């Protein structure tokens, strides 16, 4: 066994390594945050100072008004929330059918579901834009929301949890005359609450971060989401706004960072749910 001195040295070594790695990982975020908290001549000192002095909210404030970030955030919040609720509902329903019901071609249908997970958005976006167009959904919340309401991943995840609910529970309920919908909302859904929370968070993040589809279906200021709106702060024709981008980045990332800290456990569960049960 190691002596105390050796163990102490090891501990110091490990902490230094941890701190070093943490600094490296955090550096981009720190640097951008610092940049966003400076304005005017201070922002582009040469050589660039990494000390947090002369901080001001001017840049963030300017980005907020210039980029209409409040509006963009509300759009993202609204769309992500609706999609999250929708995905939970559709996933619950489909997962129930796959886990508790028997019907012809069940295996094939499930395989079809899984196969859609592999179709890259690159294949579907052009045609989907057409579909949205013919439905009159360009520049609308429907266009942003509806195509995302079904999640194969969600169906898969919830089904996994449902499969772990003892069959006897469903049988006992059916002897009592509990219908499928009632069993779903009174027994199956409450029993899968941790997974549903995780799925919700996962979906929320995914929708919040979506880039390709929103950029294709939205063409107006009214419905634009924050991810797409950020790009307008990096517009090539307007050199004067270089630093606004950093302010926009901070505003766009902040809500998610807060969510990460608050819901860390659910997030971890959501992300790992797919891994552990493969």
């Amino acid at each position, binding site marked *: 066994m190691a002596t105390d001195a050796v163990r102490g040295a090891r501990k110091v070594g490990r902490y230094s390594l941890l701190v070093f790695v943490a600094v490296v990982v955090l550096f981009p975020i720190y640097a951008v945050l610092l940049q966003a908290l400076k304005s005017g001549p201070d922002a582009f000192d040469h050589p660039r100072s990494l000390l947090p002095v002369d901080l001001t909210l001017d840049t963030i404030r300017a980005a907020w008004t210039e980029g209409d970030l409040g509006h963009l955030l509300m759009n993202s919040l609204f769309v992500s929330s609706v999609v999250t609720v929708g995905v939970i509902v559709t996933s619950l329903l489909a997962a129930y059918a796959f886990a508790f019901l028997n019907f012809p071609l069940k295996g094939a249908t499930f395989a079809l579901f899984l196969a859609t997970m592999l179709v890259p958005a690159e294949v579907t976006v052009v045609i989907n834009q057409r579909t949205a167009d013919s439905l009159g959904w360009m520049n609308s919340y429907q266009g942003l929301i509806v195509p995302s309401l079904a999640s194969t991943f969600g169906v898969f995840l919830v089904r996994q949890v449902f499969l772990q609910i003892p069959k006897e*529970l469903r*049988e*006992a309920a*059916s*002897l*009592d*005359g509990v219908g499928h919908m009632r069993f779903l909302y009174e*027994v199956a859904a409450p*029993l899968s609450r941790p997974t549903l929370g995780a799925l919700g968070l996962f979906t929320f993040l995914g929708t919040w971060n979506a880039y390709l589809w929103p950029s294709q279906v939205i063409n107006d200021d009214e419905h634009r989401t924050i991810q797409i709106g950020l790009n307008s702060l990096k517009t090539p024709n307007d050199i004067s706004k270089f630093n606004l981008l950093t302010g926009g980045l901070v505003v766009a990332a902040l809500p998610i960072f807060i969510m990460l800290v608050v819901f860390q456990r659910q997030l971890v569960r959501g992300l790992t749910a797919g891994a552990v049960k493969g």
Partner: protein
Amino acid sequence: MAYGAHVARVRLEHVSKQFGEGDEQVTAVDDISLDIEDHEFMILLGPSGCGKSTLLRMVAGLEDPTAGDVFIGDHRVNDQLPKLRDIAMVFQSYALYPHKTVRANIEFPLKVRGVPKAQRAAEALHAADVLGLTDYMKRKPGQLSGGQRQRVALARAIVRKPAVFLMDEPLSNLDAKLRGDTRTELVDLHRRLDSTFIYVTHDQVEAMTMGSRVAVMNAGRIEQVGTPQEVYDRPASAFVAQFIGTPPMNLLPVGVLGTDDVQVGIRPEHLVLSTGGPLSGTVSMVEHLGHEVLLHAESGAGRLVARVDPASVIPAVGQAVQFDAAPQHLHRFDATSGVRVS
């Protein structure tokens, strides 16, 4: 069928159940006919995989018979949904809703049926009272012991006052002591309730102590139906003879003590030490059980087990012994079919 209308006779007519298709088809229940009288405590007894649970589940409506008819009362219920069959079922795993309290679990069947809140609370309380659960109403199943959970499952079943109780090995998850106590409670419960019980088990002690009748099943068929005493005294087949009784009946090879087409069986308590008896062997093991002694002997007719009085002279291991049995205690079975011949 209306709630609480008790016409509790259960009749199975030529019921069969096959699982799977083609080459993988397995017959779980093979052409079974059985009459269960009103307020009877019928035990379906058999080794695991004999089809007894499948049979029970067909009565419940959880499985559809491949052939044959199931009657509850005077109604053919083959196409009736479980909830309309006026039955309640207790599962081996209890199937309690883990996220609901004991009270909510017990009330749930009534809630589903739209029983008014006050009435439902009163009846749940009554059922809980019957099973001694009143102190645990606010707990969730996870906070209860196995025995308590089992009683919650029972309470949830009786609260509905069903015509027929179906129980699928409800005691198998309990320890030995608790199992004994609960057996008595169940018999008591059966006496108090105006319901028919159908009880599936592989434990012959449960069958012998609780059932008004026992149906012994083997490989999808019923070998014998009768009172526990009948089944023990006059087993209808070599299988029943060996399945019931501990230690099991000695089955002598064909020809020994009988003719070429008959196999003879003797229960250990009927095998008596008798110098010059027709069955001779060497003592291989002596089990002292307190109130009795089991004597194992290797003989030309295979291993024999005899139950002897501890007060008598016990032969030592290695000693040569002879056994005999009274003619009225010999059970004869057809050598090929195993069916009782006398």
